[in-house]
């Protein structure tokens, strides 16, 4: 994730001009920049307001404790942070990487203040019926999920000290195979009705984790629990792999430019790269970044 675009990518003179112009248009279209605050800025308040996250009251004055945008919702005023760690909420869909296999639970890295804990009892194994986990299951945990695997889960409960418990009870959660994990800033992934997207024409699953981890992979068939799933490694066709990389690079470009990730924006970026016949590895070059910026300025109008 790079934010100083001008430093990392060499833009020639015309590209600079085009880029600046697109940024100016985006700035004009945006309406919330007047509410942005930084640390220790004072926030206008009425006496009736509830003071939420990112604020603190000092000597009767309300100060911001983080850099962000002030949001008023009914009687609540809070500061929405931009670049901060993921703040978990119950029922959020998250994607994470397993960093440790412990006794009866897995520790999952989530780009949050603390790591997530996925208990064995909160997972669905190959059986259709949720059976009581015996000690044998604990010893066989490594057969299901090992370190460095990518898993998809739901935030189960958040303890008072910040400890996070994950649940992977339905079939759509669990270990993710044959794909790519991308890390973006959490503020770019908004909460929506559906975080699981199945792109039928490409045969690809796209999971937008609320913690900023995005999974792009070959579509996982929902395994019939009665069938015996053999352990053969399946072969992902070349076209699917290229599509996975194209979508992955589109997400990288959008993250570099700081645009919100939604399915529409990602697919539009992929379409843009296809129509302009841009090679997958050229997508990370300066020209494509400028094109995407211009396209976004057009789209938001």
């Amino acid at each position, binding site marked *: 994730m790079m*934010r100083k675009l001008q430093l990392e990518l060499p833009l020639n003179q015309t590209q600079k001009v085009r880029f600046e112009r697109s940024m100016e248009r985006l700035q004009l*279209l945006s309406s919330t920049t007047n509410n*942005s605050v930084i*640390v220790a800025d004072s926030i206008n308040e009425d006496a009736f307001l509830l003071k939420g996250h990112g604020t603190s009251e000092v000597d009767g004055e309300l100060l911001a404790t983080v*850099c962000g945008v002030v949001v008023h919702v009914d009687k609540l005023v809070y500061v929405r942070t931009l*670049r901060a760690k993921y703040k978990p909420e119950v029922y959020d869909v998250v994607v994470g990487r397993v960093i440790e296999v412990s006794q009866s639970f897995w520790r999952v890295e989530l780009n949050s203040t603390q790591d997530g804990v996925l208990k064995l009892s909160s997972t669905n194994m190959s059986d259709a019926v949720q059976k009581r986990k015996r000690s044998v299951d604990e010893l066989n945990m490594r057969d299901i999920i090992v370190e460095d695997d990518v898993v998809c889960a739901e935030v189960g409960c958040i303890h008072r000290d910040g400890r996070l418990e994950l649940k992977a009870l339905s079939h759509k959660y669990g270990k993710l195979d044959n794909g790519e994990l991308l890390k973006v800033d959490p503020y770019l992934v908004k909460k929506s009705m559906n975080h699981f997207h199945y792109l039928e024409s490409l045969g690809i699953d796209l999971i937008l984790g609320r913690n900023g981890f995005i999974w792009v992979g070959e579509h996982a068939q929902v395994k019939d629990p009665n069938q015996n799933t053999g352990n053969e490694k399946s072969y992902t066709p070349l076209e699917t792999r290229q599509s996975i990389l194209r979508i992955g690079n589109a997400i990288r470009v959008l993250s570099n430019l700081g645009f919100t990730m939604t399915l529409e924006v990602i697919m539009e970026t992929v379409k843009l790269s296809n129509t302009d016949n841009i090679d997958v590895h050229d997508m990370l070059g300066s020209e494509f970044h400028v094109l995407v910026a211009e396209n976004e300025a057009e789209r938001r109008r």
Partner: protein
Amino acid sequence: MEYVNPEGLRLDGRRFNEMRQIVAEVGVVSKADGSAVFEMGNTKVIAAVYGPREIQNKSLQKKNDHALVLCEYSMAQFSTGDRRRQKFDRRSTELSLVIRQTMEACILTELLPHSQIDIFLQVLQADGGTRSACINAATLALADAGIPMRDLAVSCSAGYLNSTPLLDLNYVEDSAGGTDVTVGILPKLDKVTLLQMDAKLPMETFETVFALASEGCKAIAERIREVLQENTKQLEYRRAA
């Protein structure tokens, strides 16, 4: 040696109450959660903040319901005129501790229990005032990482040479043998978080030098605020959909 000539100009042409040129930038280390580069004249410092994240070494955790703040100050071996022999010496350890205490007082650690915040400071070019530049860079990096803070911690140094208080000493003026007073303040709350001095000063002179350093801190605070406001606005209008 004459550090302030009869017209009131210093060795680099500044007046007694003029600071060196400040260049500040946010978001320079892409892998870090927050990062910043801060330059005061020729002194150049880079700060990278990782956190809040899971505590790596549980034995270091002293207060259970507060975040653990770790700070590491190091000077690159090419940062001074002669290539430095050791990267970590006693001075680096002392400065790590001092900066850690300053930043810890400013971060709202009770909002982030069971977590760890790592601040890494690397001096790329040393020309006097490195600890002030480090504190300013750390403040920018922490704000960039979205870590809640009471206020922006800013720092500046001032000295006393040729019977004149001088703001923002460079290396030559610092090694002249006069006093060097480093002040760190929280500008909005108007509190002092760091006060260090070497050598001796009479009380009235100290008060003048301290006041001068505080003025310098306020000017730096303005600059830092500009950089953060610009950065926040830019992130917001890019994101807004």
